[in-house]
């Protein structure tokens, strides 16, 4: 949208222009065709000249309030109306509303005899009358060269054409003159000689049975214009020119992260998934689950309530929906809500540029938040790898400029190094995931790893990628002495480790029991020792008591004896013998 804004400011400084209303053309011409001047549209038969003219008039009449005159030299008004009805242009209604006048000029050499001098004033009068009758601002002459077939005096004709273009300019109408492409010249009769302001060349090329329509502005005086060849489409909405060029590296980088739809994969990608507006590539050999990853990504987009545009070049919509259901992913509700839009076509349905044009157009129309292209490698059938690279760079630039997250899958053909991306686009991809086969122990399993992911610390681990009935699962793989273990070998390894853990657990329990037993025996021994000690202490106490008793009785005996002996000195009663007191607990 930024482009249109810059164009609008450019318009002020350059020629006044008449907008064509043709998708994309106003963009590359910086606002339309020169107002009040003739423009030459040339091209070979069937390149879309007449349609271009009609659309210029119809859009002018319906969108810009500028009525137009179509001077047809080749087809009658009825034929014209019929030819463009399929494009939704109702010429008869426009004619009734006085927004359009179609005049059929029939020039038949066999009916006309030339006898003497003449000029083409009558043609001017007819055109002038038609212009005045509806106040036309636009005129299409399709194609003047028929006059050269009908009249023999080319000198007069050339002089009259020069006068006609002068006259058209004086009238101030924006005119389109169509001309058949000549051999080595833009038009057979050299009309480009008279129309010097703007010349547009339409081309319909067929390469390898694939047709591509292209448009090029040969010259446009006094204005800056795109000089490339732009592909254009003719479909039910008329012409759309697709100004698809590399837009340079000025895109805003979003900080927002979005999920890939697979939680463990988000974890691998720095824990939060990929950046919004980035480009994601999944490469892998056949059957490694690229489409399943893409479908999960699409599902995640729709889950956020955003729109996903899914270009499927190998599977039809119903086939893909059915297949995804088998891994527990139901895309049907998103299709019903129109959040998921499929565009399934065969790559050889058009040329490469046309594919890009279709992509471009659909993206413009549907404004999705993410786009899936599955797979990009099928384009190899319709273009060389250099062409594919150029196309993808332009596509990625285009998507990035709109903050659309792109998800591409790419098939690595057998025999190629896995890290070699088929179309050499790896350097323009932000996040590149690789799915690979791991053949081990007589089975084939899928491994996934993140090869690169700009702007985040991603996992460098190879993970096992499983497709189950409940969706995609990502498992840790075992890295043992024999290498990476996957599948049943991983399961065996898991069992082995479980057995080892069990044994260790049992060992610990056994030791715990041992120590408990020991503790108990120590306690028992301690109790026994204690008992013995108490017994000994008891014995000692008894002895002491006996000793005291004996001492007391001997003292009494001596007193008694002294009394009986009538001794002089009173007997000194000696202190009782010191017996250590035994402290009892």
């Amino acid at each position, binding site marked *: 949208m930024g482009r249109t804004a810059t164009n609008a400011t450019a318009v002020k400084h350059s020629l006044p222009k008449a907008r064509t209303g043709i998708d994309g053309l106003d963009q590359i011409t910086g606002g339309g065709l020169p107002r009040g001047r003739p423009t030459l549209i040339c091209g070979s038969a069937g390149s879309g000249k007449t349609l271009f003219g009609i659309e210029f008039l119809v859009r002018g009449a319906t969108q810009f309030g500028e009525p137009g005159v179509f001077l047809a030299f080749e087809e009658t008004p009825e034929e014209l109306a019929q030819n463009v009805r399929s494009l939704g242009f109702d010429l008869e209604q426009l004619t009734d509303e006085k927004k359009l006048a179609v005049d059929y000029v029939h020039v038949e050499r066999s009916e006309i005899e030339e006898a003497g001098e*003449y000029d083409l004033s009558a043609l001017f009068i007819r055109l002038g009358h038609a212009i005045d009758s509806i106040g036309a601002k636009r005129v299409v002459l399709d194609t003047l060269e028929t006059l050269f077939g009908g009249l023999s005096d080319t000198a007069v004709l050339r002089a009259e054409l020069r006068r006609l273009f002068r006259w058209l300019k004086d009238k101030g109408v924006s005119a389109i003159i169509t001309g058949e492409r000549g051999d080595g010249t833009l038009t057979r009769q050299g009309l480009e000689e008279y129309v010097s302001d703007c010349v547009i060349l339409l081309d319909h090329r067929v390469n390898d049975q694939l047709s591509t329509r292209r448009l090029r502005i040969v010259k446009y005086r006094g204005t800056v214009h795109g000089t490339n060849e732009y592909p254009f489409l003719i479909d039910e909405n008329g012409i759309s020119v697709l100004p698809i060029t590399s837009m340079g590296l000025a895109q805003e980088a979003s900080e927002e992260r979005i999920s890939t739809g697979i939680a463990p994969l988000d974890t691998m990608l720095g824990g939060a998934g990929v950046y919004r507006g980035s480009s994601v590539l999944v490469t892998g050999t056949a059957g490694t689950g690229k489409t399943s990853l893409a479908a999960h990504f699409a599902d995640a987009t729709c889950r956020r309530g955003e729109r996903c545009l899914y270009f499927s070049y190998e599977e039809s919509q119903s086939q893909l929906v059915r297949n995804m259901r088998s891994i527990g992913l139901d895309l049907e509700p998103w299709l019903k809500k129109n959040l998921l839009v499929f565009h399934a076509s065969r790559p050889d349905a058009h040329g490469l540029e046309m594919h890009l044009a279709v992509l471009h157009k659909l993206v413009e129309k549907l404004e999705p938040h993410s786009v899936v292209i599955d797979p990009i490698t099928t384009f190899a059938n319709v273009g060389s790898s250099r062409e594919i690279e150029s196309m993808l760079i332009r596509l990625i630039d285009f998507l990035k400029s709109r903050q659309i997250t792109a998800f591409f899958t790419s098939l690595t053909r057998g025999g190629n190094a896995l890290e070699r991306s088929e179309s050499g686009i790896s350097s323009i991809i932000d996040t590149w995931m690789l799915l690979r086969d791991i053949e081990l122990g007589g089975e084939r399993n899928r491994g996934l790893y993140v090869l690169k992911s700009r702007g985040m610390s991603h996992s460098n681990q190879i993970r096992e990628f499983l497709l189950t009935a409940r969706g995609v699962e990502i498992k840790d793989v075992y890295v043992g002495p024999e290498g990476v273990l996957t599948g049943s070998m991983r399961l065996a390894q898991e069992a082995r480790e479980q057995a080892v853990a069990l044994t260790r657990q049992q060992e610990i329990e056994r030791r715990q029991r041992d120590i408990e037993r020991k503790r108990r025996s120590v306690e028992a021994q301690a109790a026994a020792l204690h008992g013995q000690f108490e017994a000994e202490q008891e014995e000692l106490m008894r002895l002491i008591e006996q000793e005291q008793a004996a001492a007391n009785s001997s003292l009494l005996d001596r007193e008694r004896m002294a009394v009986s002996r009538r001794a002089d000195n009173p007997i000194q009663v000696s202190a009782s013998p010191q017996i250590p007191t035994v402290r009892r607990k």
Partner: protein
Amino acid sequence: MKAKKQSPPSLQEISATAVADPDVWELRLYVAGQTAKSQAALANLKKLCEAKLPGKYKIEVVDLLVHPHLAKGDQIIAIPTLVRKLPEPIRKVIGDLSNTERTLVGLQLRPSGS
């Protein structure tokens, strides 16, 4: 041999019947204003008709500057244009009719060969 020779109607035969046709010739001359070419054309036409179709012709002059819408009906692109409305089929001769030979051929008044 003779019958075969006569079977495709030749230009001579057509012009012979035309000349033999006693009906009035309806001629229409389209001009755009009083230009030298238009006046020359009208003068040349009158002279020719007097010589070839005395009393059997009718000339109508249409000025397209006055009636521009009439150009469409007869598919006029050049000025001046002479249209032979009758006898049918319609014939057109463009130019100032200064080339009498070609005018006669155009109007099928005289075989081009003789």
